[in-house]
Structure formats: C-alpha cells, structure tokens
C-alpha cells in the first residue's frame, strides 16, 4: 500500500552521495573540453545568459551539479541553452562554456540516448 494512504509523504534524501553518484558526464566533458576544470563558480555566465532571463537555466549551477554527478537537473535544463555564446565572452577563467554545454549534451546522448535537439 502506498505510504500516502496513511496520510504521510516520503521525502527523497537531498544529500549529494558522492559514492553513489555517476560522474561519467563530467568525465566526458573534462576529456573533450578541459577548460571545464577551470570554472570557479563566479556565475558571470549565468548573469549574462539570455535563456536564464526567461527559463530556469544557470550554467554555473549545471557545472557544479555535473561535477558532483547530480545529472538529473542538468539533463532536463541543458536543453534551454540557445548556443548564443555570450557566456564565453564574460568568463574570467577562459572556460569555453558553449563547448561545455555542447559536450554535456553529447555525453547525455551517447551514454543515455539523450535526443539531439
């Protein structure tokens, strides 16, 4: 019988379990776009992002989640990028942000059959 029938709900654990998580998407990006390592999470990319003004999309957030192997949110939201490339112009660390998103999509497609847009 579902727990909700008892008037309770079950909460999913919020903790990032580094041992349980799969970081293959991040590893794929590291391999194909090594500047991915240089991100210091300043958020300039997200601040300038046009997509982020209208949709839930922050490359800064996706970067950190991918590196921890928390792939569910990036898998959904990475579709929102329009590849305009403004983020590359503002990154202080020289991360090729557009390429990061491209390779993230490639990694999802190759490993999980993510549909190419």
């Amino acid at each position: 019988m579902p727990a909700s029938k008892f008037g309770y709900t079950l909460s999913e654990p919020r903790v990032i379990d580094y041992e349980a998580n799969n970081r293959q998407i991040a590893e794929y990006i590291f391999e194909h776009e090594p500047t991915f390592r240089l991100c210091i999470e300043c958020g300039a990319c997200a601040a300038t992002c046009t997509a982020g003004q209208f949709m839930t999309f922050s490359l800064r957030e996706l970067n950190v989640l991918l590196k921890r192997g928390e792939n569910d949110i990036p898998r959904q939201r990475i579709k929102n990028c329009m590849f305009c490339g403004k983020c590359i112009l503002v990154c202080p660390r020289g991360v090729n942000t557009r390429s990061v998103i491209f390779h993230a999509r490639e990694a999802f497609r190759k490993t999980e059959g993510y549909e190419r847009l």
Partner: protein
Amino acid sequence: MGKVVVIGGGVSGLEAAGQLARMGYRVTVTEKEDKTGGNVKNWYHLFPDRRDSKEIIEYLNKLTDHPDIQILTGKEITEISSDNGKFNVKSSDGTILEADAVVVATGFELFDSRRKEEYGYGIYDNVITSADLERMFRSGEVRLVNGKVPERAGFIHCVGSRDEKVGNYYCSKLCCVTAVKQAIEIQEKIPSLKTFCFYMDMRMGGAYYEELYREAQEKYGITFIRGKVSEISVNINGRLVVKAEDTLAGRPLRMELDMVVLMVGTEMPEGNLKLAALSSLKCGENRFFKPADNHFGSNLSGRKGIFYAGCCVAPMNITESISHARAAVSEVVNYLKTK
C-alpha cells in the same frame, strides 16, 4: 654603537639580527627551542614557487654567521624590564641579558587541531595536519597508517582560523595557498589520487597564488568544493566520511576519503601572552602583539626601544616577514642614533 637583543630565532629574528650586525651593532638572539629556524624548519617546500625550505635556513644561517652575533638556544624570555633606557631581558632560566634596544620576533605557533574535536585529529589515524604532511613529503612517502597508498585525499581549509568557536576571528592567510601547494605536491607524488579541497573562501591574496590555484585545477585536476566540513567519522570499511554543505550546489554532501589534511591556522603562542603581560606590551583582539600604528608604526611597540618584527604582530608569509624584519632594523638604528 649599542647592543640589541632579538627575541626569537625564526625568519624575522635571524633576518633582523643579520642586518643589525652588518650595520655594526652587537646582537644576541635568543631562541626557546634548541635549534633556530622557527616554523620554517619544519616545512618541506614553500609556496608559491615550491622552493625547498632548506634554502631559507641556509640563507639565514649564512646571514647570521657573524662575529657580532651571539645565538642562545633553549632560552625562553619571560620579561623585558627597563631602567634609564637600558633593558633587562629576563629568561626562564633566571639569566638576564642587558640591551640598549630589543627586537621582539617571537612569531606564531600552529593551531592545535585537537581543539576541533569534530575533525578527529588524534582520534582517527588518517586525519593529519598540514605540518604532518610536510614531514611526510620530507620523508619521501605519503602513505596511510596501514602503509597503503591513499586513493582519495581531502584538504580542509580554515582549521582554527575564521572560527569563533575556537576564539579566532582572523584569517591566518597562509593556509589557503599552502593547501593548493600541498594538493599539487600530493598529486605529483601519487598521480592516481583524487584530491578535494573544502574551502570557505579561496584567499589567494599574494603574488602568483591565483596562478597556482589555476594550475591546481587545470594541470592537476584538483576539485575545489565550497563548504566547511562539519564533521568527520569513520564507516564500517574504515574509510573517513566527511559531511559538508556543498554551498554552490545548495545541497548537503557526503563523501568518503582515505586521508584528510587539516589546514591549521596560526596563533599567538601562550608564552608570548605572558611576556606581553609582564612587559606592559599590548595585544590586539587577535591576541598577537598590537603595534603602535597599523600603517606607520607596525614595528613600534608603544614602549620606546622595544620593536616588533614578523609574525608576532600578525600572520605573514616569509617574504613579508623578511621585509618587516628589515623595517624593524631601520627603526632600531634610528632609535639608537637619536637616543
């Protein structure tokens, strides 16, 4: 010319003594330990260029190898008193040194990690301090207590710094860049290792520090996680489990590590607080000696003829300690000439 007593035989004390002797003053250096060299002699490589600390020691030894410099080791100074412009520097063994001027260069000591019990230093075998890791580097091998090669290592920044719980509001300034340097070095010694740094802020405020940080990410693949570790425990497999908030992901994070390195901060040594109290020298809120003026008088104690050099006033790196010691010498010379 005059006689100067320098209290402390670390970088600042020896630098001040050497420069004073070169200018023609007779100098006595007192050192509480049985060897000079202070904290730097316990270190392996220095940031940011990873120079061997032995080069610093050699430089200081050469500088102080002078007929007008007398070095007394195993001598802890307890009080500085003065009478008509002459100083009496008292030691715990009862001896008194006379001087025309005194340079206090008593430095700092490392935070005792056992005071942060939640990190398990002294409880869990593979929780070590940055100083322990330097010793391992010097011995040539970085191994776990059981002799195995670690697969994952974590560095915890700000242990004993920026922490009201241990009574230290201040930033120790040297530990962030030391963590980056050590992460690179451990990664070089064990290329298969995965290394993580848990930080509150990355304070890379020095020449070539930020470049070193960038190199750690780019060349060595070191992962930086923003969040202070709240506690360390051991799981059934004997691995260390760290709990932190990954503040950039906005989620709690749990991770297993084989080795944890605590980046210990700097503190005013207990003995110096007594020296300050008995000698009418003021200490600041950070407990270090409080100079007469932050900008124009950082070497002045507020008592004429007593001067400060180096980390006894605030955390400083070696470059700054040497500069501060040289500045102290110029104040001493000025004082003795116009006395």
